[in-house]
């Protein structure tokens, strides 16, 4: 052994005695994940986690220059984009990765749904995952207003107005979210608070439970595959390295998007100017936006928008509780109805999203 190696070993032994990290390494080596023809879907959960970490880091950095007041918010974003060194990169990474994160969550959710990975004992893993989807949608909605530009201002007005349409609690909910009856400085402060304090805490709470349950129960096998016939590969280094390739590829794509399409700042919002043409929410809300646009004014004497919103809320509840009503799934049997529902929802989201972009001026 050379003197250099001796020194290195001493160094490692010192930290090993204190941190006992060989136990963690041992655990990672013992932990295995199944590998089969559909196992590439497993990587999307890890991708969501990776993108969430990017969100936390870049979001934390943006706090350094962002000022949550209606007089300064837009100017501070312009300052970040135009004057702070690499500010354009940090903000663009934050915005692009947020959008890709929502997309990755959708892919992760639908693959989990279609593979029936929510089967017992993983019901709560699914339910916490659904909560995380709603939390990240709320992240997107609250973050959209923060640059205080024209588009986000009016999209927020429409979005919060929809909240107000929810039967019984809508009015109070809207007032709570807005911090008053109209969008104002109080709304911006509230959205900022949701975005950097409340939602991160909620996300960490549910993410903690979600990850803990995945560690306890392991990764689910698709229906019809027998545990003893499936090849298991070590989590570290096999699975970890494959996952790293996906992470680095996505990071490279984000980098390219930021360089060629830096996130726009837009025009500063003026609450007293007329609503500009072509306002729409972020892409992941557009299917709901278009649905509400196409719903007739009145259905069976009830306001169409209210009825559609109620239907969407009930559908979300059913979606979240699928592990409890998919009786065939609970018994480990194939259920074509679930496949049909899953595919129908995917087609509905895709078609209505496309309509928003292809026919922006379409009205019922």
């Amino acid at each position, binding site marked *: 052994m050379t003197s250099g190696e001796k020194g290195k070993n001493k160094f490692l032994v010192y930290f090993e005695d204190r941190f006992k990290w060989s136990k963690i390494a041992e655990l990672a080596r013992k932990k295995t994940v199944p590998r089969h023809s559909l196992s590439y879907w497993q990587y999307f959960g890890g991708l969501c986690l990776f993108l969430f970490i990017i969100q936390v880091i870049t979001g934390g*950095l943006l706090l350094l*220059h962002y000022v949550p007041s209606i007089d300064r918010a837009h100017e501070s974003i312009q*300052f970040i984009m135009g*004057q702070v*060194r*690499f500010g354009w*990169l*940090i903000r663009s990474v934050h915005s692009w990765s947020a959008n890709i994160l929502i997309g990755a969550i959708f892919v992760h959710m639908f693959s989990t749904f279609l593979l029936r990975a929510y089967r017992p004992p993983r019901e709560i893993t699914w339910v916490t995952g659904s909560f995380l989807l709603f939390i990240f949608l709320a992240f997107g909605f609250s973050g959209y207003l923060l640059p205080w530009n024209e588009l986000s201002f009016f999209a927020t007005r429409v979005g919060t107005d929809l909240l107000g349409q929810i039967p019984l609690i809508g009015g109070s909910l809207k007032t709570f979210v807005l911090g008053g009856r109209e969008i104002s400085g109080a709304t911006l402060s509230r959205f900022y608070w949701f975005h950097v304090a409340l939602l991160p805490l909620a996300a960490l709470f549910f993410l903690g439970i979600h990850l803990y349950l995945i560690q306890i129960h392991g990764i689910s096998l698709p229906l019809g595959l027998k545990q003893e016939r499936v090849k298991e590969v070590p989590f570290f280094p096999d699975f970890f390295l494959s996952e790293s390739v996906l992470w680095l590829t996505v990071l490279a794509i984000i980098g390219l998007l930021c360089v060629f399409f830096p996130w726009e700042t837009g025009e500063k919002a003026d609450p007293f100017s007329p609503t500009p043409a072509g306002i729409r929410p972020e892409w992941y809300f557009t299917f709901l936006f278009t649905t509400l646009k196409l719903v007739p004014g009145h259905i069976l004497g009830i306001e169409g928008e209210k009825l559609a919103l109620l239907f969407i809320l009930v559908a979300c509840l059913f979606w979240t509780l699928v592990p409890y009503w998919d009786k065939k799934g609970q018994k480990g049997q194939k259920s074509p109805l679930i496949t049909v529902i899953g595919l129908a929802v995917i087609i509905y989201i895709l078609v209505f999203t496309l309509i928003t972009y292809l026919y922006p001026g379409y009205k019922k």
Partner: protein
Amino acid sequence: MERRKFIDLFLIGSGLGTFISLLYPVFRYLMPTPRKEESVSQVVAAKIGDLAPNSAKLFRFGAEPALLIFTEEGNYLAYSAICTHLTCTVGYDSSTETLLCPCHNGRFNLNGEVISGPPPRPLTRLNLQIRGEEIVVWRERG
């Protein structure tokens, strides 16, 4: 070199390279950014007639305070108003025609030189020029 060792080195090197290239923009982002108003090259301190003889006025020179003095003899003088002792803001004492730092009683004459108290250096003098009705002040570069 063994193939395994080469691959190990290649992976560690690539990992380090990636890490540094990610860290560099973050490091640069965290460094303070000079704001436009902080890096002014010249400002209009006052207009002719704004000041009575033997009086002075504080004005913003970028992010720092500066002092424009109109002497009894009718000359204009401009100094950075930051005391060279512990960066308090100095004011003009018309009774003694000196500049006084009230924090530790540092006193400067109209040439900016220390005449009493703890300041270690004279005040930073600013250049000025009368352009029409305006008194324009700037700092000597370097």
